[in-house]
């Protein structure tokens, strides 16, 4: 079974983001970029499936700018077998929309015929949480989102999902799209031998047009603002004072 893992190049989770002066988005110039952490978890899971003999090949895919090649190399250094880069924009500030990505992924799936697609549940830049679900709909496949446990057994997969009320376990038919949550695993570090091998692994370069997909944006960003700064709190001297203040604030 082939496993496809879509990975997105996003602003590094350690970077303190800044909104661009014109409000069109977040400033990405000269900022450290990394693999979306949820996608890293998906890559790790795919490699574990391969190590457990449940997958034969792990293919990492990224849709975006040319620089996403670095992100794919990271996936290859972790242990993916090969990679496909689909260039859909030449501007690092253009975010490729979930439906566009899902359509391109469908094109790749039609060619590669994987048994499983493992996605991060969302990208930490725009938090859309949509690509996996859209892909499942386009393919007419089952889907299991927010996976914190995944067990594949022949034609079906048992997935534990992190839902608002707790954990929900479902069984889905293969092939399927699974989006992974934070607690599924702890991604490995790229080992030195794998880092050195990554460059020799195949990385195919494609364009959105190769899959007949128009990647131009359909959504318009009206404005981007930083979250309002939290107002300073106050210290109270006693429970009585606390109750009084809460009453004043209309909270009790």
């Amino acid at each position, binding site marked *: 079974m082939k496993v496809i893992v879509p990975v997105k190049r996003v602003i590094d989770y350690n970077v303190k983001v800044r909104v661009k002066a014109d409000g069109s988005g977040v400033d990405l110039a000269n900022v450290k970029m990394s693999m979306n952490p949820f996608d890293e978890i998906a890559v790790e899971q795919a490699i574990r499936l391969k190590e457990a003999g449940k997958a034969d090949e792990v293919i990492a895919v990224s849709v975006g700018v040319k620089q996403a090649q670095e992100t794919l190399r990271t996936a290859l250094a972790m242990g993916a077998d090969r990679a496909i880069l689909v260039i859909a924009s030449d501007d690092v500030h253009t975010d490729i929309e979930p439906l566009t990505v899902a359509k391109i992924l469908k094109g790749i799936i039609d060619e590669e015929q994987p048994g499983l697609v493992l996605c991060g549940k969302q990208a930490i830049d725009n938090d859309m949480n949509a690509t996996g679900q859209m892909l499942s709909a386009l393919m007419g496949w089952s889907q299991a989102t927010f996976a914190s446990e995944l067990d594949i057994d022949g034609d079906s997969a048992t997935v534990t999902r992190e839902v608002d009320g707790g954990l929900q376990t479902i069984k889905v038919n293969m092939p399927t799209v699974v989006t992974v949550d934070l607690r599924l695993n702890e991604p490995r570090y790229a080992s*030195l031998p794998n880092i050195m091998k*990554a460059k020799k692994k195949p990385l195919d370069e494609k364009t959105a047009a190769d899959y007949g997909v128009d990647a131009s944006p359909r959504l318009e960003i009206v404005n981007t603002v930083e979250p309002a700064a939290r107002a300073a709190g106050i210290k109270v001297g006693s429970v009585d004072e606390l109750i009084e203040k809460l009453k004043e604030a209309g909270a009790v």
Partner: protein
Amino acid sequence: MQFGLSEEQNMIVDTVRSFVENEIYPYESEVEQSGQVPHELGEALKQKVIDLGFYACNFPEEVGGAGLSHLDFTLVERELGRGSMALTHFFGRPQNILMACEGDQRERYLLPAVRGEKMDALAMTEPEAGSDVRGMKCSAMRSGGDWIINGSKHFISGGEHADFFIVFVATGEDQTPKGPKKRITAFLVDRGTPGFEAREGYKSVSHRGYKNYVLDFTDCRLPDAQVLGEVDGGFAVMNEWLYATRLTVAAFSVGRARRCFDYALNYAAERKQFGQQISKFQGVSFQIADMITEIDAADWLTLSGAWRLDQGLPANREIASAKLYATEMLARVTDTTLQIHGGMGLMDDYPIERFWRDARVERIWDGTSEIQRHIISRDLFRPLGA
């Protein structure tokens, strides 16, 4: 000129940095408080590094290392510099000088060191022979085909964990126009050899938990098989293999300075006095500007020294400059960071006071700043006959 890192180099940097942040940082306070690394923790770290294929990455592939170039290895050292040295010691980088092992020394010392089965320590300094290496008193005399060693060594880093020591000992004296000059030989000495004792040394202000050891030799008998390199060839092996260790100190200093700098930057951006962030005062913001300028300069100087080694270009002066500048830069950066933090910088709630203490030794070991200035100036004047 090409100033960027390759994809591989970027991944090496990312992996080592994540390793230090996730596997080293969480234990630093504990090590700092107790002054030691629990045995199990050290072993667990070592195993993780072995699994990652980074153990002994400074060794060539034919002996089981990763065959990293000087530049790649300097990047590894730079990222390790961020973390506590007591802990990063287990990110094993055995002494390159072990490549001088011959015959069964390879099986007994070199290969086990590369595999992480045995740890090594290098012993050169003596109480009366610091910068003046040739002034060493520790000596070996011939006796029935063996060597009998007497004397002491001190400041031996890694002595606590070492299974064997690479010890430099005087094995004779030559008369030269400038006066007598000692001949030096390197020996491989196993822990537990009769007549050899390794004991804990002084309590240092820098790098707590990274202990320095004292070695005592009392009629310690060693066969010829323990000689590393040639008899009287100690300086030759030293020059061939220990040449580049100054770069690792420079790289450490750059990595540590960057970590320290992040504290200075963030604190200056958040701390408010007189109704505004202290970064709005030029007295603070200009210090930040000077710090990053110096860090970048030291970084490039260090990487270019490593690059010169890889290119086979003369690098002695350049490496001395990198060691001198990077260690003195680290002293200034840690001191300024502490000043920006004010009184809190001295308290052990922040790691700043530790960075400041740790930095002090960098200007002393692996050749003091004065020795580096000597190397640099001699390199310039010697061709002029001055």
